[in-house]
């Protein structure tokens, strides 16, 4: 299984099955200036997942992925060829950061606080779909309360199934730093979920 498409099978795969393989683009960084088409087709889904890990709403992932690859296309010739996933990851990070800054301004003129992706219809059993939407909403709110570094590490590890080494490669930090972030993020997450799912007008059952 390739890391370029971990979610294509529709479920979560444990980390050992997705570990560093020779064909994995995260495990074998490209050397030299890569071709844009190859970069796009290889890393597009990764970029979308990273954008989700940075807290971007699902409805805006397409736009932000496009913005990210616009930057990639413009700057690809200047890429030093050392760590392509890490380079793309940082571009996506800055794009998401800029988007959050603009979103603050947009919210001044928007009445709706409901994210559009939470209103999308699910497939299959309506009850399961409803429960999943509630769980996604709780997850999204809990992630919003985390620090950006913990949020990214937690989401990529717990939801997307990345390994600590892969996250360390993307973030360009030691693996132990990633595990430390995940450890603290878990504590935060448990606490936030307890608060968000508590009985009361503000709470939501998962």
């Amino acid at each position, binding site marked *: 299984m390739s890391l370029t*498409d*971990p*979610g*294509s099978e*529709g*479920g*979560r795969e*444990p*980390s050992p099955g997705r570990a560093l393989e020779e064909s994995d683009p995260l495990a074998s960084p490209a050397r030299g200036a890569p071709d844009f088409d190859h970069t*796009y*087709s290889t890393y*597009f*889904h990764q970029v*979308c*997942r990273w954008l*989700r890990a940075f807290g971007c709403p*699902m409805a805006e*992932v*397409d736009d932000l*992925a*496009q*913005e990210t*690859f*616009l930057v990639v*296309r*413009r700057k690809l010739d200047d890429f030093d060829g050392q760590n392509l996933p890490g380079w793309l990851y940082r571009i996506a990070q800055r794009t998401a950061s800029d988007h959050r800054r603009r979103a603050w301004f947009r919210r001044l003129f928007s009445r709706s606080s409901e994210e559009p992706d939470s209103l999308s219809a699910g497939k299959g059993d309506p009850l399961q779909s409803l*429960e*999943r939407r*509630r*769980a*996604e909403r*709780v*997850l999204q709110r*809990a992630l919003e309360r985390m620090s950006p570094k913990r949020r990214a590490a937690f989401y990529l*590890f*717990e*939801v*997307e*199934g990345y390994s*600590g080494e892969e996250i360390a490669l993307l973030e360009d930090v030691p693996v132990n730093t990633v*595990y430390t972030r*995940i450890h603290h993020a*878990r504590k935060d*997450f*448990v*606490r936030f*979920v*307890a608060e968000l*799912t508590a009985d009361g007008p503000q709470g939501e059952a*998962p």
Partner: protein
Amino acid sequence: MKRLIDSEAPDVATERAQEVLRRVRPLAASEARLQRVRRALDAAPVSGGRRGVPRFRGGWGARAVGIAILAGVGVAAAAAGSAWWTATEHGVDAGEPPSERSRSAAPRVEPSAHDPAPSPRLESKPSPSDPSEREPSWTEPSEAQPSEAQPSEAQPSGDNAPKAAPRANVAGEAAARTLGPATGRTPTERGARTTPSTPRQPTEVELLHAAATALRRDRDPQRALQLLEGVSGSGAFEEEALALRVEAAARAGDPRGPQLARTYLTRFPAGRYAERVRESLRASSPP
């Protein structure tokens, strides 16, 4: 390190968190999304920045020209603002004719380039462009020495001292009345901007300056006499005021001229304007 959903939950809160994570699915790879974004990317300009935002394509030359234009506009705006500020500070309106301008600037203490008539204390050279003003006036002091007037102030006459204060107020109002209609401004207008409830009376220096201007440039000795009424007869500018009054009375044909000249010579026999006053007295007396 195990994932949270693969670990054993030590408490209920962790169980709830695990339940949330189990129900959430990772983002599925979508070929439709990939193609959609790719089409949008192909439609976007290659060197363009953000979608819909035109990118500046000019070189450094165009940027330098733009910066120069901006700098020029800034300098012009600063110059216009400075000119307006200066005009406002001196009470000069750009639309006023030159004579009106000089009249409105007359009561100010600051010497103005448009005003060739000097204040008795604040001397300045007459403008060489005006022949009539090039001739030195006899009431002009050779040098400003405020300490010279102090001895006369220290020994006021008994009848002059009590009259000085009320007369200054009356003449101040007269000065305001006299200068007001000519310029649309009053000498107290600047003070009235900051404290509109208490209009400021013109000081003795301003009155002397206005009187000198009215006498020599506007050829209006009557107004000069009226303005000089506000100057204290025992103040620091007593000598200047008395000399100006003698000159104004002589020009206006006022019968009080000889009496004023004699008063001056009595009080300042060695004054700076004594010689001129004696000439005026000789000219007014019948041969």
